[in-house]
C-alpha cells in the first residue's frame, strides 16, 4: 500500500481525536502540487473509516489548484505537476515543499516564494452527523 494510506490515516486520526465518529459530510481538499492518487487515497480513506467503525454520510474529495507567490516581486503563478520532470514530481509528491529546491519565481528569479494554496491534503469541512 502506498503513501496515500498514511495521508488517509492522518484524516481518520483527526476525526477520532476530535470525536467525529458520526459525520454528515466530510470534504477533503487534495492540492494538485502533491499529485496524490485520488482513487487510491479515497479507497484507503474508506477502508480505514470502515475498519474503525466511522459513519460518513457524504464524502467529497476535491482537487485544489496550486498557486505560488513571490516575496521579492509579488508575482503569483500557478503550477501544474504535469509540466515537471518525473523525478521532481515524485519528490514533490512526498514532500511538497521540495518545490523550493527546483523552482524560482518566473518573473524575477527569486527563490523566496511561498506555496499559497494547493500544497497537499487538507480538511475543508466536517459536519457532524
Amino acid at each position: 500500500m502506498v503513501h496515500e494510506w498514511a495521508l488517509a490515516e492522518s484524516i481518520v486520526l483527526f476525526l477520532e481525536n476530535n470525536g467525529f465518529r458520526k459525520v454528515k459530510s466530510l470534504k477533503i481538499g487534495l492540492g494538485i502540487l502533491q499529485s496524490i492518487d485520488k482513487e487510491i487515497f479515497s479507497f484507503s480513506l474508506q477502508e480505514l473509516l470502515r475498519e474503525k467503525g466511522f459513519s460518513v454520510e457524504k464524502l467529497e474529495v476535491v482537487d485544489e489548484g496550486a498557486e505560488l507567490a513571490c516575496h521579492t516581486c509579488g508575482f503569483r503563478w500557478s503550477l501544474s505537476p504535469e509540466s515537471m520532470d518525473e523525478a521532481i514530481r515524485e519528490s514533490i509528491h512526498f514532500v511538497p515543499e521540495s518545490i523550493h529546491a527546483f523552482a524560482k519565481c518566473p518573473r524575477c528569479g527569486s527563490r523566496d516564494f511561498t506555496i499559497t494554496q494547493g500544497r497537499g491534503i487538507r480538511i475543508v469541512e466536517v459536519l457532524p452527523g
Partner: protein
Amino acid sequence: MSSDPRFHGAVKRLKQIPKVYMVLSSKGGVGKSIVSTLLSYYSSLKNTPTGLLDLDFTNPSTHIILGFRPEELSYREEKGLEPFKIGKLSYFSIISFTKDNPLVLKGEEARNVMREVLSIVNWVGVQKLFIDTPPGLSDEQLEAIYNLKGLVKPIVVSTPHKLSIQSVSRLVRILRDAGVSEIILVENMGSGELKTFADSEGLKYAGYIPFVENIEECIGSISKLENCRIREYFEAILTKI
C-alpha cells in the same frame, strides 16, 4: 487540538517508538549532526533497531557523515515511507528528494515539512529514534518543544566555550518554561568541564566527547565510523540515556 490531520498522524507514529531524542542546540557549529549521527549509528551496532531522522531541511548533512550520496538513498512505500536501511539503522533525510539543490524554507513551510515527514515515515520496529535539528530556535524546534513535548526528549549539545554555554542556558530556560523536566546535556569537544554547569542547571549530564584534531578520520563512510577512535565516548553516553 490541532486541525492539521498530519499532526495527528505524526503523534501516532512517534508514540509507537519507545525512545525519541531530539538533538538540539541554539548555537551553530557545536557538532549536533555528528553527535546525533554517531549516537544513532553506534546504538544500531549494539543490536538496537535505531532510527536517525535529519530535520535540518535547508542544510542536511547526516548523509555526508554516513557516507551516502543523495541518489543512493531510497525509501520503500508501505503504508507511508519506510526509511533507508543501513544495517540496523533506519535513516531518513529530505536530501533524497531535494538532491543537493539549495532549499529556501521559511517559517510555516519548515513546520509543514516536519509534519509531513513525521506523519508519513514509518519507523516500525525502531526502539530509539534520534532527530537531528538545525541550529537555533526555529519552527522545527518550537514544534517539538511546544506541540510534541512528552513524546520527544531533548538532548542539548554544547561545547565548553562560554558562547555556547550562554546559548544553552537560554535554550534550557525555554524548555523549562514549556514544562520539559528532563533535559540531557552532551558535551562536545570537551573534557568533562560541563558537568558542573549541568548540575547547577539541573540537567542530566550524559558525558563528553573529546576534541579531535581531524574529524574527517571519523566521518564519511561506515568503516570510518566503525573505526573512529572516539567511538567509546559515544558508547559511554548511550549507556546513560
